[in-house]
């Protein structure tokens, strides 16, 4: 199969076939990553630039490792504290990097749509590593891969996404992807943390963990930003944890073999209790491993079988 996309800007726009292709490819990458010799040469000679306008250690490291395992030359550009502050625009930065002939740009930005804007202006493939509250496609793919490997399937599973859906690009990408693969999605959050029109997004909405988790196969917790915990969206950390934090009592409402997931970094004691995060149902570490594999699959698909190919 040829992966018919030049960029990966979101899950929206991918077909079920595209998604399965990437997940299958990622399964292969997992095997490779578990070997002693972890490196291939499939992207040898190609240049990958990680352009992060928003700080992120984990995602950036994951993309860097993925690129290196495929043999690409990887450069990290953290623009959080550099030229952008001096008035250089997103487009200027992109054009500067473009002139260096990268083959793939991995971009994270705090504004929704920023990666799409950038993709219009550069001559290489672009991977969205998170744009504002819009999409985070590789996170959704790695979540799907984790679920598929643990449960053997995605279709028919009940997945509960809990917490700050309003500001979450992870939630949006997951809602699109997991629905496309046939899971039924629930969201559980106080209404102040839900986007307008959520009930029209093809999900079931709950405001109580006990009800929302009942019979669930996957419990996906979202991070709540510190500045949103103290009176602006929810009154306090302790109230939030009391009603929406995942602890043993609440998890007991889900299926006994339910998976517990978190995109990280976690706020222990805010959205998730430590004993759950480190407990037997947690697949949080597996998610990290799948992250590298999915990113290898995505970059290989875009650069080797994508219809864009390396910029000339």
């Amino acid at each position, binding site marked *: 199969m040829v992966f018919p996309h030049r960029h990966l800007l979101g899950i*929206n726009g991918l077909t079920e076939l595209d998604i399965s292709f990437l997940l299958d490819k990622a399964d292969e990458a997992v095997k490779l990553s578990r070997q002693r010799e972890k490196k291939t040469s499939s992207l040898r000679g190609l240049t990958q630039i990680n352009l992060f306008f928003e700080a992120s250690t984990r995602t950036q490291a994951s993309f860097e490792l993925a690129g290196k395992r495929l043999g690409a030359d990887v450069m990290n550009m953290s623009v959080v504290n550099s030229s952008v502050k001096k008035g250089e*625009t*997103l*487009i200027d930065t992109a054009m500067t990097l473009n002139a260096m002939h990268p083959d793939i740009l991995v971009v994270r*930005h705090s*504004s*929704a*749509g*920023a990666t*799409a*804007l950038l993709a219009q202006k550069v001559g290489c493939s672009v991977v969205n590593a998170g*744009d*504002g*509250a*819009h*999409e985070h496609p590789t996170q959704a793919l790695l979540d799907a891969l984790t679920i598929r490997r643990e449960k053997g399937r995605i279709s028919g599973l009940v997945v509960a996404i809990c917490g700050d859906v309003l500001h979450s*690009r992870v939630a*949006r990408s997951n809602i699109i992807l997991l629905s496309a693969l046939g899971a039924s999605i629930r969201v559980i959050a106080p209404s102040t943390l839900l*986007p*307008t*029109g*959520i009930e*029209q*997004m093809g999900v079931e909405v709950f405001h109580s963990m006990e009800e929302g988790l009942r019979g669930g196969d996957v419990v996906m917790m979202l991070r709540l930003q510190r500045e949103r915990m103290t009176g602006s969206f929810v009154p306090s950390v302790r109230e939030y944890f009391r009603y929406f934090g995942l602890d043993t009592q609440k998890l007991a409402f889900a299926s006994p073999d339910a998976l517990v997931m978190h995109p990280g970094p976690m706020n222990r004691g805010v959205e998730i209790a430590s004993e759950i995060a480190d407990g037997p149902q947690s697949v949080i570490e597996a998610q990290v491993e799948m992250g590298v594999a999915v990113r290898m699959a995505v970059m290989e698909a875009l650069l080797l079988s994508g219809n864009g190919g390396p910029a000339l």
Partner: protein
Amino acid sequence: MTTTVFRNARIVDPSQDMDATGNIAVENGRIASCGGTGVPKGADAIDCTGKLIIPGLVDARVFVGEPGAEHRETIASVSDAAAAGGVTSLIMMPDTSPVIDDVALVEFVLRTAREQASVNIYPSAAMTKGLNGGELTEFGLLRDAGAVMLTNGRNTVANNLVLRRALTYARDFGLVVASETQDETLAAQGVMNEGLFASWLGLEGIPREAEIIPLERDLRLAELTGARYHAAKISTSESVEAIRNAKTRGTSVTCGVSINHISLNENDIGEYRTFFRLSPPLRSEDDRRAMVAALESGDIDIIVSSHDPQDVDTKRLPFADAADGAIGLETLLAAALRLHHNGDVPLLRLIDAMSTRPARIFGLDAGSLKPGSRADLAVVDPDEPWLVSKEELRSRSKNTPFEDARFQGRVTATMVAGRFVYEIS
């Protein structure tokens, strides 16, 4: 002095409730006759068979970059753009740098316009100093210097007492207060209409209540003070309802809508197209339809272009970081004609809303083809198809939401005070 005669035109003049074929004669910068069939000896006759002649458009809401942002638009360039759009009179917003809140600035605008503009430029004045919503400006002196209306520009006055006093004081000077209403705290960091579409895009929404709540407050204060209040740019069906109710109560209220809000809806934003980022935001198709109906019935009095030039520095950015606003002078008539062609609003009402009615609301000598009126008019080919091309726009800024749009109907010539200021090549 030569006489110019436009022969055999379809004359559409709402000020005379006229839609008839005939001739218009222009002499000494004034309309000499309207509707007859004769051509005086020695007159310069122009055959207008198949063309419309309308009173020159009056655009009551135009942002200009001069003074302070001349790279976006000058008084001269806005005038060129207006002429190409058949707009012969425009009210210039005080949102400049410095803000037009002082007599000297009103005089600057009028002097510059006299020297450089081919269309009539009418300055409006800031209602509060620096548009900051606190201290009132010198309404009387500003009016006598030539300001035709008061407005707080893009900003809504948050303080109810300040607004009450401004309305009361403006009433004594017979000035209209034009307001755009948006509650800053409710709108917060919002950048588009709140709803499912914004949620999928991951963009913060502006609830419709952010417009309706301060609008209803304004209408109550207008009723309390007896001032002449103009809701400058509404975007929701509930706003239409509020205006209608206020009018029924006998309040001295008028209402405007931008051409964008009756031509487009939020879905046009598509994949983060910043030229569709406007304030107020584009709303739903239901809102658009409700406003078109209100325009037809006259509950919405006027259409404005809300011409707001922005350059690449403010528009070629991620959606949430871009500036609001779109240019509109050159496409105003063509976009409005869509409503005529598809049968939504009769032609006479459309021209009324863009010419006669705004002239009447703001007390301008414009909007009529009656004999004796200043000869401000536009000749329009109502059916000519054309494509909006960025390169052909005369405005210094190119942020049009109608880029590459196909229109039917185009201004072929514009005359101001008997002089051609635009003729299509």
